[in-house]
């Protein structure tokens, strides 16, 4: 059998919802920022914060050290806010939400209404620049857990937001983080009170719908002393010939003895098989293990986007704190990824673990870039890094760029890396046991990714496995 004859699987989430939008004036300006702040009814401190970021933005430049290059983005030719008109009057309950929006999420497999909602998972659904609905609010309220759109948190919980927003990713951090700080629209806010274990998975589903629009998501999660939360985000977008920008900032704060588990299943539109269109996924994610014995664990399954450029990182401030990064990055056709993590060890006895699985197929390019930085005061700290790359075919690339700084002689850093090609003999073995080419590839690749897949919450692990297989369909030739 010629495996090259496999069909290219169309992107399942590529539809567009036809809906009337309210948009900010095109382009990046003070007016745009004031428009966003006003429509969200923000207090003055928030607008001032945004404008401070905007002033900073005027004097800094986009970074350009990354491997995947892209055509210059015209920031004046973008919309920075787009929301369904029907959301303007802030629907009080799901009954008042435009049925077209509910239908969109049904089609994406995320039912929002009470009868059908996913069991054991509370969902915040973000559509372009607004949050459409948040499920299970009542049950979470009872435990004192706050899970709401960040725009709502700014109004209802200003003390928490002011204390923590920008405390992990300063507004001066780098171009895209600063841009996000100036124009961010919506995202989720989570606060888990002390000694509380969040009883269900919290999840945000991001959907880009409008064209010529950037999505600037902002998420802030705070786990107070002795608390635990597991959070998952999912992302999809319509199929379009244009490249769309998604520049998110995600900040996590874990206080003493707290744990945050943050999982991402990123399936933005990757572009077509000739590399036309797709999302630029330029995201800043950072977590601070601020308290002693705290833990932050990032798990990401990155299968979508034309370009993925992100390094979910951990700042291990508290003594005995733990940072983990589990990543699967799959690039097919002309997709590019430059992803990895930064583990900054500041406290004593801090530990970090990095497991990265990169898979390249077609003409794609996949880079792992990571920093392990052990400070002079981080006594007895440890890092273990394992980077495995799998190549399919002979036109794709895999690169590993680890940076290691160890300023403490009592600390140890381990790095292991492998690169392999998908093995024809393994495929033959599976074929000989009755599996066709696609089933065989799926089996082998899922085996390769297993250490990371098993970190995902159970509700999503099966979906992620399927996604891994679908992303690679037609890639063995």
């Amino acid at each position, binding site marked *: 059998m010629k495996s090259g004859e496999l069909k290219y699987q169309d992107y399942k989430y590529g539809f567009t919802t036809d809906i009337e939008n309210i948009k900010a004036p095109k382009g990046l300006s003070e007016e745009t920022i004031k428009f966003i702040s006003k429509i969200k009814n923000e207090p003055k401190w928030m607008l001032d914060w945004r404008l401070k970021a905007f002033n900073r933005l005027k004097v800094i430049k986009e970074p350009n050290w990354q491997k995947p290059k892209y055509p210059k983005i015209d920031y004046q030719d973008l919309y920075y806010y787009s929301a369904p008109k029907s959301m303007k009057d802030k629907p009080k309950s799901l009954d008042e939400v435009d049925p077209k929006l509910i239908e969109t999420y049904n089609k994406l497999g995320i039912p929002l209404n009470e009868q059908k909602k996913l069991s054991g998972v509370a969902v915040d659904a973000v559509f372009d620049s607004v949050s459409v609905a948040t499920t299970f609010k009542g049950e979470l309220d009872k435990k004192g857990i706050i899970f709401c759109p960040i725009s709502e948190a700014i109004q209802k919980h200003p003390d928490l937001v002011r204390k923590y927003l920008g405390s992990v990713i300063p507004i001066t951090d780098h171009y895209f983080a600063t841009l996000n700080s100036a124009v961010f629209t919506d995202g989720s806010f989570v606060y888990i009170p002390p000694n509380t274990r969040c009883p269900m998975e919290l999840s945000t589903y991001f959907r880009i719908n409008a064209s010529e629009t950037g999505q600037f998501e902002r998420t802030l999660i705070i786990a107070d002393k002795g608390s635990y939360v597991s959070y998952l985000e999912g992302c999809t977008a319509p199929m379009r010939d244009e490249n769309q920008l998604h520049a998110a900032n995600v900040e996590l704060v874990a206080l003493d003895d707290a744990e945050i588990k943050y999982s991402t299943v990123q399936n933005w539109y990757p572009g077509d098989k000739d590399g036309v269109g797709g999302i630029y996924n330029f995201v800043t994610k950072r977590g601070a293990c601020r308290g002693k014995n705290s833990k932050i664990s990032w798990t990401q399954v990155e299968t979508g986007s034309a370009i993925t450029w992100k390094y979910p990182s951990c700042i291990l401030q508290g003594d005995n704190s733990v940072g983990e990064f589990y990543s699967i990055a799959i690039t097919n056709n002309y997709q590019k990824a430059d992803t990895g993590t930064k583990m900054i060890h500041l406290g004593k006895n801090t530990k970090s673990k990095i497991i990265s699985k990169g898979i390249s197929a077609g003409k794609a390019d996949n880079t792992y870039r990571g920093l392990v930085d052990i400070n002079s005061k981080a006594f007895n700290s440890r890092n273990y890094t394992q980077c495995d790359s799998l190549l399919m075919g002979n036109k794709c690339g895999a690169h590993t760029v680890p940076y290691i700084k160890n300023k403490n002689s009592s600390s140890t850093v381990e790095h292991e890396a492998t690169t392999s090609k998908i093995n024809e003999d393994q495929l033959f*073995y599976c*074929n*000989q*046991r*009755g*599996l066709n080419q696609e089933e065989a590839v799926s*089996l082998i690749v*899922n*085996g390769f*990714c297993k250490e990371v897949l098993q970190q995902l919450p159970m509700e999503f692990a099966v979906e992620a496995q399927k996604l891994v297989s679908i992303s690679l369909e037609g890639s063995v030739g």
Partner: protein
Amino acid sequence: MLQLQNLRASVNDKSILNGLNLNIKAGEVHAIMGPNGSGKSTLANILSGKNGYEVTGNLKYEGKNLQDIPIEERAQKGIFLAFQYPLEIPGVNTTNFLKTSLNTIRKAKGQKELDTLSLLKLIKDKASELNIDEKFLSRQLNVGFSGGEKKKNEILQMKLLEPKLAILDETDSGLDIDALRIVADGVNSHKNENNAFLIITHYQRLLDYIKPDFIHVLSNGKIVKTGCADLGQELEKTGYENFK
């Protein structure tokens, strides 16, 4: 069941099989013996459909042209190859692999897929017949298995998949005497009037346990002599020198 006429095969213009003829009927056990490099493994690979060979000749399996059948369909139609070097697939659980394979083949045969419980029971039963430790079923497929464990795992798969034509490519090499006897028992218990075996081996010793109906001597890509079980003993004494 299987008819091969004038089978010729080459890799990169180097010819390996040079006009091989072989007929296998249901209920028969055939052994192929021959020196290193005589084309034994190539024959096994071609029957199971491995890519990379230039193949000509008239090859029929159950009346159909073998060359037209893709690898996985050959497996689904009952051709099984016990690999000389079973492949390691990291991260893939052995039980899961057996499950996927068995259910794929059952589905292709029009049989009902087995639910997890009955599957587990079936796998455990067959494994214990082969004296395979249950722990080994939860390990990654062939990863870190000893040579003997890998070979037993091949026979376990054969017993589960119940092929019509089982090809054993040097399954005896790397086995100690006890494992050899267990593997042979596995083959003998699977044998019936509806299936057939093609056993590729260097040595007579496996044939002490599995009685072949025919022994063929393969040399320079051709069958140069066919005989009954006694031929094996003769070869053990005289070697392949006379057939080169």
